[in-house]
Each structure stands twice: as C-alpha cells, then as structure tokens.
C-alpha cells in the first residue's frame, strides 16, 4: 500500500509559525525520504490533530502524554509511540509543581489543609491529570473532593491563570508545569513559571514550591499504526538520527536543547492511561 501524502502534527505551545519554520527542515527530509507531499499542522488546540490521528488523516505527530493516552483509550490500534525527547540531563520528563505564596506561610501540602487549591485546564497532564491522581497519595486523608481536605478545588483554566490566581491570592495553592531543571528563583529553566517571570507578571521571591510530582514522561512522537512498515521505519530512523545528522534541525524539532530522541513504547505511558481511565466517567 502506497501513501500519497504525509501529514505531520506539531505540538503547539510556542508561536505556531516559529514551530512550522522549525519543522520545515524535517518536512524537507521527509519529502526526500518518502517522495510524497508533506503537510504540517501546528494548531494551538490539539483536538484537531488527535481526531486526525484517529481518523487517519494525520500520519505522524508529537503528542502530549495525556493526549496520547486519550488517543490510545479511544482506539488502541490508531497510533504507536516511537520516540521520546531526552532532556539535557538525560531524563525523559518534566514535573507538575505545586506552589503557593511565600507570605501565606504555606510550605507543603500539609499546610494546605482547609485552603483553596487550583488546577489549570482539566485536559492538561501536569495541570490536572497527574496531580489529581498523585496528590491524594501524599498522605492519608488527602482527597480532591472540594470541602474535604481542601476547602475548595477550582479550575483556573490554564497554567498562566493558575499562576496569576496564586500570585493574586485568589487561591492558596495551585499546580503548574516546569522542567524542574535550574533554580526555583528563576522559575526553573523552562515552564509556565519561567514565562510568567520573564513577562514580569510574578516575582519568584513571592512564591514557594510546595509539592512536586514524579517525573511525567514527555509526550511521545507517534506514528499511525496503519502506515506501511517501511514508512514507519524510515520516519523513525529519520527523527532518531536527526540529532546527529542535523543538530540545528533537531534543536528546532525538539523545541530547544536536547540530547536527541530515544525509542519508546506504549509501556511507558501505561500509568498515564490508567490515570486517565480513572478520571473517565
């Protein structure tokens, strides 16, 4: 079976056009390797790409961990994870970070009892899914039921809003994501806190970290399972070796410095799938 074109979904986050440009080199390599037209999509909201993978119109994409789990639950035969980005320190993931205002006196989840806690977007891995599963395991008696351990549990809508809400004192503590590398006072090297600091919206002196999740695996690069095996092999090899063949391109594709990509399988995401299943009705 031949393919007529190859469609790549690119994880949003940064400026879409920047991402498209960063991926341009990968597109060119793909076109060369497969000999078909390559189209790339970099939406801000990832639903379209997830549906495209399920419907068979998107062939390759870099998904978030939770998004991957969502696709997997909906149709285990739709995609397979092939590669994952390796951080500069050799790790695979990032963290969900719980934080509060320093002047509130809160230093850990213990102090949060009877306080208002905020998640970000219910669709986010680090802003909701993982903390909502992991925080109740912190100690006995912690639950995410509003009015139980916490006085209230709110959704702020997104990482940025959580940071603003905590900083403004609208909520006592919240979760957001960070790579966990570098120093707290800088807002870490990467993540929502760092962006807020750079934008001048918060001062890290005012905030403290109160909780940190286990490493959350980065999302995988997935290929549509129905693709011909040779296409899958070619694409996997292409991306895997990108760091060696064209470091500048790899920098763009990985959205920053990395040690390249490593193979990965579905097994790495089973816990996330389980977490997501637990959240379903």
């Amino acid at each position, binding site marked *: 079976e031949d393919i007529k074109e190859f*469609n790549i979904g690119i994880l949003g986050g940064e400026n879409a056009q920047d991402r498209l440009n960063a991926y341009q080199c990968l597109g060119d390599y793909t076109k060369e390797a497969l000999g078909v037209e390559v*189209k790339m*999509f970099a939406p801000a*909201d990832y*639903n379209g790409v*997830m*549906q*495209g993978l399920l*419907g*068979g*119109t*998107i062939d390759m994409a870099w998904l978030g961990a939770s998004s991957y789990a*969502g*696709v997997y*639950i*909906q149709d285990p035969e739709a995609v397979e994870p092939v590669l994952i980005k390796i951080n500069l320190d050799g790790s695979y993931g990032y963290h969900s970070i719980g934080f509060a205002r320093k002047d509130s006196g809160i230093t850990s989840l213990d102090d949060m009892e009877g306080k208002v806690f905020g998640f970000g*977007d*219910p*669709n986010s891995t680090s802003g909701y899914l993982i903390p909502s599963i992991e925080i109740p395991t912190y100690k006995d008696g912690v639950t995410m039921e509003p009015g139980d351990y916490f006085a209230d549990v*709110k*959704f*702020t*809508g*997104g990482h940025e*809003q959580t940071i*603003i*809400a905590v900083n*403004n004192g*609208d909520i006592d503590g919240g979760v957001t994501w960070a790579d966990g590398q570098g120093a707290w006072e800088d807002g870490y090297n990467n993540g929502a806190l760092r962006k807020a600091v750079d934008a001048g*919206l918060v001062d890290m002196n005012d905030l403290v970290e109160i909780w940190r999740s286990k490493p959350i695996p980065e999302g995988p690069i997935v290929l549509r399972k129905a693709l011909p095996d040779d296409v899958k092999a070619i694409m996997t090899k292409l991306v895997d070796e990108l760091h060696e063949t064209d470091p500048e391109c790899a920098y763009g594709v990985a959205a920053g410095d990395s040690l390249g990509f490593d193979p990965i399988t579905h097994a790495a995401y089973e816990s996330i799938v389980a977490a*997501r*299943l637990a*959240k*379903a*009705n």
Partner: protein
Amino acid sequence: MADTTAASLDATRANYVALTRQRRLYGGIMLLVFVLLMASGFGIANDRNAGGFLPGLPQMFDFPAEVIAEAWTKRANLPGHIAKALPALIETLNIAAIATISGALGAILLSMLATQGLAPWPRLIPVFRRIMDLMRAIPEIVIALVLIFVLGGGPVPAAIAIGFHTVGALGKLFSEVNENADLKPLEGLSSVGATWGQRMMLGLVPQVAPNWFSYALLRFEINIRASAILGFVGAGGIGYELKNAISWGQGKFDEAAAVFILLFLTIVVFDQMSSYIRNHLTYGSVKGARK
C-alpha cells in the same frame, strides 16, 4: 400616442435592450466570479487540509456515532450528568443574559446615534459607526484574557467581554433595522414638539422592537455558545464543559451528550420564545389579529 413618439419609442427599446444586455453581462460575470471564487477557494482549502473532502465524507458520522453509542450504553448516567451541568448552565445563562441586556442597551443607543434620520448629531454618525466596528472587531477572547489578568477568573470578565462585543455586533444589526424604519411617525411626533427621547421611544421603538428583539435573542444564543470559546482562557461555562467532554474522548461522551442535550433544549426554548414574542410584538396581543 404611438406615431408621434415612434422615434423615442425606438430609443427606449434600444436603451432597454442595451440595459438588459449590460445587466446580463454584469450578472453573468458576477455569478461566474462567485462560482470561480467558491470553487477555487474550496480547492485551496481542500489542498491545505489534512484529509480530503471526498475521502472524508463517508467517515463524517464516525465521531457522532461513537458519542451516541457511548451515551446510549451509559444512558443511566445521563440524568446525573444533566444535574451536574445545571449550575454551569445557569451561570452561563446569567453571563449571556447580562451581557446581552447591557450590550443591547448600548447597541440601541449607539445605533440610534449612528442612523441617518435619527441621529441628533448627524455629523458624528461616522464616528459612532467606527466605534461599533471597533467593538465588534475585537475578539471577545482577547478582552476576556486581559480582564482575567485584572479581575481574576470568574463570570465577570466573561460577561464584560461578551457584552462589549455584543454592543458592536447588535449595534450594526440594529442600525440596519433602524434604517428601514418609517420616518413619517417620527416626523409626526416632531410636529407636536416632542423631544429626541420621546421621538425615539414613542416613534421608533414600536416599529423596530420586534426585529431588535429577534436579533437580541439570536445574539443571546450566540453568547451562550461563546462560553465554549472563552474556555480557552478559563472563563468558560456550559459550552466549555461540552468542549472538554467532547475532546476528552472515550469515557466522557455520555457527559458530552448530556451537556449537549441541555444546551440544545435551552436553544429550542429560546427559539420558540423568540418566535412567540416576535409574533406578539408584530401583530399585537390578539392572536391572529393580522391586518
């Protein structure tokens, strides 16, 4: 009559035939341009799309089918979900209602100031028109986001954002309605020494109220749905719940169905109400008292 004007009659004929030809030509060209634009536009869009139109067509109902299938197997959950979504619906309705009311009031004022024949200061008409354009053109999501940074989350930023936008959107529609209003009653009121306010309230409003009302209700519906969009910045309501449930995928489709049923019922109610009140305003309270 016939022979004296034979020459002019010929001229009339020739003129008219020429006019017809010209009209046909222009009409034909416009039609052609439109068809070409549609076709080539569709072509471009189809090319840029991940999946093509024709191959996608048979799959069009895959997703809805999945949703319905899951909702059906878990139909026992539906009432629970509906009950759970009710507070969100009420909040959304409140946001939409207050935004629509305040937006409509603003739009009424602006539209009267911006309509030829009604405006107390005709020179300022272009100014008011541009103000409406501006209010309409700024996407509500932008306003909401800025407000969230100032006011924090919650319904107020959403209501202000939607209301601001509503002023511009309804203002344009209202001023179109106003343009079609009959100015004779207004002149009649002028002649008895009525003030501007009296002329508008007593001469204009009775004429245009049904259409204003209908547009305002349609806008109200749109504003209910706008909560889905505002979900992007954390100011969502029922629409956002629907979007989340749908995009969560398998596992929450029953919730999606429940929220959708709620939303659909709401819209049906307002659609029926709109047509009832419209008739009432247009034809008077006595049913079928059409002249």
